[in-house]
């Protein structure tokens, strides 16, 4: 029973990793760049939600929706104004650029909101439900349900909507998409905004657990492990990878005595490195094997 309890908790935190990893994957599939600032966008989302809900006293649902819109617009302009300028430069430049952006966001957050730890009230805080002796908190439930809804919406969007299909087309082949009359630049900015919105949703859902401060941007790094495990470039892979990382982390935390001290904090990174060494294509990669030299 304890094991099932752990797995449920792990799935909840894993969903957050999965959502952030989803953001990486969307951007990577489209533009073959990795956004190292994803975790910082998550942090920004949590802070904006804190301002709207905690400070301005907005309704939770309203505040949530407005936060997502604000961050989505931010993501759109982040691509169209800043990141687009370095298209055509080696990948190193993008890595450095997005790391720099991450630092600016983190610095900005700690200047504007301060370095205190904040929290805001949500309809889920502090409530739990019991099911066959399993204790499930509403917060964890909200995370799991939120992830399921978001992933379904994204799935429908990419499968049936015109813009969604255009996005898949531009990810598949930029040049051909241009020839078909798809506004590829606009589509890429839109992908950035979807990816930022996903991070913001993850941030707001996560806020009741970790509370809001600048250190939650580190989740972005653990989400890398999720994305790599899922086979960078696969959307279901990102979510499944995230859930596996979440469960592994919970298990390592509980059975620490059998392993070695402090294994919990680095378990995600260990999984990442082991994946890269043993099975670098990841679990769900639908493409050819990761290029090896």
């Amino acid at each position, binding site marked *: 029973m304890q094991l099932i309890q752990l797995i449920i908790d792990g799935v909840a935190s894993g969903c957050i990793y999965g959502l952030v990893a989803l953001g990486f994957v969307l951007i*990577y599939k489209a*533009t*073959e*760049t*990795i956004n190292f600032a994803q975790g910082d966008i998550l942090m920004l989302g949590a802070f904006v939600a804190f301002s709207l809900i905690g400070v301005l006293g907005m309704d939770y649902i309203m505040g949530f929706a407005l936060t997502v819109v604000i961050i989505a617009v931010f993501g759109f302009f982040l691509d169209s104004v*800043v990141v687009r*300028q*370095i*298209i*055509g*430069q*080696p*990948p*190193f*430049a993008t*890595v*450095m*650029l997005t*790391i*720099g*952006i*991450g*630092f*600016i*966001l*983190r*610095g*900005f*957050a*700690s*200047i504007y909101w301060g*370095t205190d730890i904040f929290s805001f009230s949500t309809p889920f805080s502090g409530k739990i439900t019991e099911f066959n002796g399993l204790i499930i908190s509403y917060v964890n439930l909200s995370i799991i349900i939120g992830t399921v809804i978001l992933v379904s919406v994204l799935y429908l969007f990419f499968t049936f909507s015109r813009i969604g299909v255009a996005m898949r087309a531009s990810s598949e*082949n*930029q040049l051909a998409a241009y020839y078909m009359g798809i506004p590829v630049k606009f589509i890429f900015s839109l992908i950035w905004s979807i990816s930022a919105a996903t991070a913001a949703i993850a941030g707001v859902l996560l806020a009741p657990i970790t509370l809001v401060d*600048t250190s939650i941007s580190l989740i972005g*790094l653990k989400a*890398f*492990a999720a994305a*790599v495990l899922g086979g*960078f*470039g696969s959307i279901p892979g990102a979510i499944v990878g995230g859930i596996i990382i979440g469960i592994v982390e919970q298990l390592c935390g509980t059975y620490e005595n059998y392993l*070695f*001290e*402090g294994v919990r*904090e*680095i378990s995600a*990174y*260990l999984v*990442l*490195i082991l994946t*890269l*060494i043993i099975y*670098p294509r990841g679990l769900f990669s639908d*493409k*050819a094997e*990761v*290029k*090896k*030299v």
Partner: protein
Amino acid sequence: MRFIFKTNYAQDINIARHGGDKFWYSLLIILMLAMPLIIDDFYLGEISYVCILAIAGIGLMILSGYTGLASLGHAAFLGIGAYTHAFLLTNGVPFFASIPIVVIVSFMVGALIGIPILRLTGMYLAIATLALCFIAEHVFIKWEHFTGGNRGMPVPQPEIMGMSFYDSATFYYVCLAFLILSMFAAINILRSPTGRAFVAIRDSEIAAQSLGVNLGLYKALSFAISGAFTGLAGALLAHYIGYLAPDIFNIFLSLTLLLLIVVGGMGSLHGTVFGAIFVGYLPQLIAICRDYLPSSIGSQPGLEPMLFGLILVLFILYEPLGIYGRWVKIKLFFQLFPTYKKQTFKKQKVFTKSDRV
């Protein structure tokens, strides 16, 4: 404009290209040697720190600037160097025996880490090194027997020829000597076949492979050499800090090193020195800026990472060649005046080569 008329092949790989180079670099070395007579102890310490940063910068420059591999985990090598050195000194190994051991250990660690990871291309390396940085920091905290854990570890200050490291002039000369040695070693590595293989890998992996460069081997070698230089810098850094704590070697330090090479100028050894001066004096610069800002902003601890990120972004966007690139451009402007063309340094764009075919 100076035109060098080459009369034999050796001129292609000469360290000093012409008499002017010899004159100015000799002058620089004389000036650096006379530095303790000119300025006081505080600034001497600062310059020692800049020398240490420059050595670490050389390490990262060989990996990122010349081989084209991004590493976000070089703080781990600084940490390995620092802890190994401190551990050896504590156990009575003399300074000049400890340094080569540190270099060899960092080289071996670099090779060990490099062999499995460097078989992967592109972004995966950046992510894997990021993970390594966290794991290393964690090991420094938990391996208490070796590192003292969170309590920290004092670094013994040895004596060299009767001169103590507490004397900042002695320490300055040691740092300067190692910087000059590292610089010569790096120049020689880079003009050897090994170094040319690195540059070939950076410019085109496919072309390099077609010419018979063993990609996996040379990438691992580059990682190991880079680790060795950074480990050496770590050993000197241990003396500069005096008391080692695991949280010094965090991700922020790795990023500082990356800032160093980007600001200095990717792909130039001059750039490491310019970058080291910039990064070494950045905290002072920020401290000065704080005084001019309204206190509500100026007193915030978040100001430093924010400016740090801003500088990084601005350099990437507007001067990807860094300070050294700017210097080359200015020099050429005057040499070619009035016929300088902006397009000379225009970057050729490479379009997304899909590895997903």
